[in-house]
């Protein structure tokens, strides 16, 4: 028979790291609170009969947000066989608040004091035996990150599941409160046909006394007037409300326990994290530093380190070929320089210098020709599959570099600061920094980013976050950014970082604009977030995260992207001639070209009326990488020059830089991929809202791309066209919507005036 151990603890206490260590799974871990928004289960590595349940982080059993409800309901309704309570050793006093509540649930609890290595490093001393006695449960010292004490924690939790007697806490509140709680317990009865589990009476009595609505629904009070009288008496005696009485009692107990069991080396010392935060979160420096960090991340990923490796992948592996270790390159370049086209001599052959390794397209083409494969099948494999997938996979090195940087920022604790920094800006516009957490997660992939919005309590803010989260460039959009940056702009330094900042600008302006509508008006919820301590990112963790994300990208290329590029190849290579479906010589006669032309007029004001760009934009709805895959097929990336250097030439010839940037902006901001649209629908739980979200994103993207193209043309050519006039009119409307006073601000002024 299987047993279940639930991992419960405060946000960012290391539950998911411990979960991964116990189960051998690879759940996403981030050094900021709110990474886990749903419960997740896995079997214990050494004992598959033991199910480990990772719960979202909670500060108490009085839930306020969705993920807190998930955790509490699970503990109350499912009743795991034991709770492994992860306590952050560097912040023990606050973490024990939840522990005191978990101990009242009548479920065996084992406390695992995590980050004990940091406690030791600081010179603080924790007496585990004493803490165990005072709490009335087993306590173990662990470091989930380093893996120390993890096995012992699992063994202790397993031992606890075998206990039959319902445990009870070893601590008690003041005599007056204990008497009050006994009176409340006496007035409490289970609902007909139900029973209050053994050992949970105290928990229910406390919650009933506090007036917790969700708990009140679960029990029957025999005499409501008597309960009110008991509560009133206690509130008079303590001169406080019921909830605060219990909170104070808990903290009094915790203070006594900590006093006895924990010795701080120096209470007044300013930690290294605090010193760093004085600079990083400084009022004036914070935002420029954030901009600099993100600029460097995108610049290095797309333009420098990432570009060097991607150039090799695109021009060599998925291009014409490459020279092993570059041997012979100098000789080849010298031969090209010395070559005189008028001499009548043959042009130097790139493959004739050094050890030339042909690229996959030429290898595949030569192999298939040698085997005598028909033209259509060769075209499917070389132009469709190799050309389409190669165009996408060529960007894996750049993505890998980006994912390394993101993992470092997540792991060291800087991401949490970004939310804090952005809160200052967001608050000015009536938004909350809490909305920025999903956006941070969305930098990797929009789907988990959208799910992270569950941590936002305010429904209007949550909906608005769902609408704006996918504006941030996710990993799948990186190939689009890199392609435009490399092919059209020759790797200009500003292109890739500007894509990220365009996303941020879209989020902020959309937030301001939407907040001023009646749909989203109102004050946003306060943003309270615990900033985790900075720590050096673990190299293995960073690499694992980057490899996992990159591998997921490769896997996706092998499924949905593969199917998409084959569909694009078929639809572009076949067309109807005399009522018959035949393979066409010119892609411009294919089915896709006809479809593309019929919608291309929509994009003409944005500067890319070419049917190929229209088709690429539409296929991008399936997955954003498809934009690149489609270009790969339609612009014939598989048919490259011998040296591979002209792989992007045909694409560059079809776009002006302004049209290309407009195309980039539209594809970055428009409706996300189907998977993300599905996630928006799940989270909104409403088709109308989903439709609103997708329509808003697409209109916004259209407007932004229109501004880029029309104003860009005005500035570069000086011509004022009807398009410019229409864009100007739309800009005026947009600016009005952006800068008009907020409705709730009006209301607040009106209320004040009425009061006067």
């Amino acid at each position, binding site marked *: 028979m299987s047993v279940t151990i639930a991992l419960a603890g405060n946000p960012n206490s290391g539950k998911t790291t411990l979960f991964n260590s116990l189960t051998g799974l690879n759940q996403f871990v981030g050094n900021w609170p709110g990474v886990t928004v749903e419960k997740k289960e896995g079997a214990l590595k050494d004992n598959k009969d033991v199910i480990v349940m990772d719960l979202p982080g909670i500060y108490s059993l009085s839930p306020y947000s969705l993920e807190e409800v998930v955790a509490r309901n699970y503990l109350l309704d499912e009743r795991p066989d034991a709770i492994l309570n992860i306590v952050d050793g560097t912040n023990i006093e606050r973490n024990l608040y939840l522990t005191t509540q978990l101990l009242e649930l009548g479920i065996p609890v084992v406390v695992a004091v995590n980050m004990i290595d940091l406690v030791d490093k600081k010179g603080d001393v924790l007496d585990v035996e004493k803490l165990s006695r005072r709490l009335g449960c087993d306590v173990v010292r662990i470091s989930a990150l380093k893996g120390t004490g993890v096995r012992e924690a699992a063994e202790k939790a397993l031992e606890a599941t075998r206990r039959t007697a319902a445990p009870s806490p070893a601590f008690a509140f003041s005599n007056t409160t204990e008497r009050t709680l006994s009176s409340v317990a006496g007035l409490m009865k289970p609902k007909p046909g139900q029973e209050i589990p053994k050992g949970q009476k105290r928990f229910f009595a406390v919650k009933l006394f506090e007036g917790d609505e969700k708990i009140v629904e679960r029990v029957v009070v025999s005499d409501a007037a008597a309960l009110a009288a008991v509560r009133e008496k206690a509130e008079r005696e303590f001169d406080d409300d019921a909830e605060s009485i219990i909170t104070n009692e808990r903290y009094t107990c915790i203070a006594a326990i900590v006093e006895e069991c924990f010795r701080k080396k120096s209470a007044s010392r300013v930690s290294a994290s605090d010193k760093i935060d004085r600079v990083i979160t400084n009022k004036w420096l914070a935002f420029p530093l954030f901009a600099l960090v993100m600029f460097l991340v995108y610049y290095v990923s797309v333009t420098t380190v990432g570009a060097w490796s991607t150039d090799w992948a695109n021009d060599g592996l998925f291009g014409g070929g490459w020279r092993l270790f570059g041997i012979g390159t100098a000789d080849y370049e010298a031969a090209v320089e010395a070559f005189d086209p008028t001499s009548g001599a043959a042009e130097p052959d790139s493959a004739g210098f050094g050890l030339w390794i042909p690229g996959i397209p030429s290898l595949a083409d030569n192999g298939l020709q040698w085997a005598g*494969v028909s033209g259509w099948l060769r075209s*499917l494999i070389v132009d469709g599959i190799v050309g389409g997938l190669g165009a996408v996979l060529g960007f894996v090195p750049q993505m890998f570099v980006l994912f390394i940087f993101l993992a470092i920022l997540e792991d060291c604790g800087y991401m949490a600061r970004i939310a804090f920094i952005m809160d200052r800006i967001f608050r000015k516009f009536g938004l909350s920094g809490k909305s920025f957490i999903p956006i941070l997660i969305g930098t990797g992939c929009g789907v988990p980013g959208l799910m992270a919005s569950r941590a936002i309590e305010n429904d209007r803010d949550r909906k608005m976050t769902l609408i704006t989260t996918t504006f941030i460039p996710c990993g799948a959009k990186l190939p689009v950014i890199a392609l435009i940056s490399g092919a059209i702009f020759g790797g200009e330094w500003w292109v890739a970082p500007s894509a990220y900042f365009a996303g941020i600008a879209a989020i902020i302006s959309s937030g301001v604009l939407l907040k001023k509508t009646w749909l989203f008006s109102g004050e946003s919820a306060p943003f309270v977030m615990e900033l985790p301590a900075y720590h050096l990112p673990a190299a293995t963790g960073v690499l694992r995260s980057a490899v996992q994300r990159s591998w997921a*990208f490769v896997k996706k290329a092998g*499924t*949905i992207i593969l199917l998409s590029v084959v569909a694009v190849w078929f639809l572009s290579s076949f067309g109807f001639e005399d009522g018959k479906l035949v393979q066409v010589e010119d892609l411009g006669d294919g089915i896709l070209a006809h479809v593309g032309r019929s919608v291309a007029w929509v994009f003409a004001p944005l500067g890319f009326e070419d049917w190929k760009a229209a088709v690429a934009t539409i296929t991008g709805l399936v997955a954003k990488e498809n934009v690149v895959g489609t270009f790969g097929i339609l612009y014939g990336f598989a048919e490259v020059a011998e040296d591979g250097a002209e792989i992007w030439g045909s694409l560059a010839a079809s776009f002006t830089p302004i049209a290309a940037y407009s195309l980039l902006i539209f594809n970055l901001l428009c409706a996300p991929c189907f998977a993300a649209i599905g*996630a928006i629908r799940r989270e909104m739980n409403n088709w109308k809202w989903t439709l609103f979200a997708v329509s808003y994103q697409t209109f916004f993207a259209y407007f932004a791309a229109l501004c880029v193209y029309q104003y860009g043309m005005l500035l570069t050519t000086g011509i004022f066209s009807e398009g410019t006039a229409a864009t100007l009119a739309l800009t005026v409307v947009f600016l009005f919507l952006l800068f008009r006073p907020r409705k709730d601000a009006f209301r607040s002024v009106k209320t004040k005036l009425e009061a006067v």
Partner: protein
Amino acid sequence: MTLADWIIGALVFAVLAAAFFKVVKGRKSGAECGCGCSSCADCPPPKQDVKQGKDT
């Protein structure tokens, strides 16, 4: 159609069929939404009870 066409064509279509079923199966089970991100496990099947494994 040559023998090479049949063999290579069959291989290509087998790969495509496998990719198709992987996408369909992944979406149906809810284990993978198809977005391809590394956090699939972070996206629990929304219509399933994680513990019971039953549709709710």
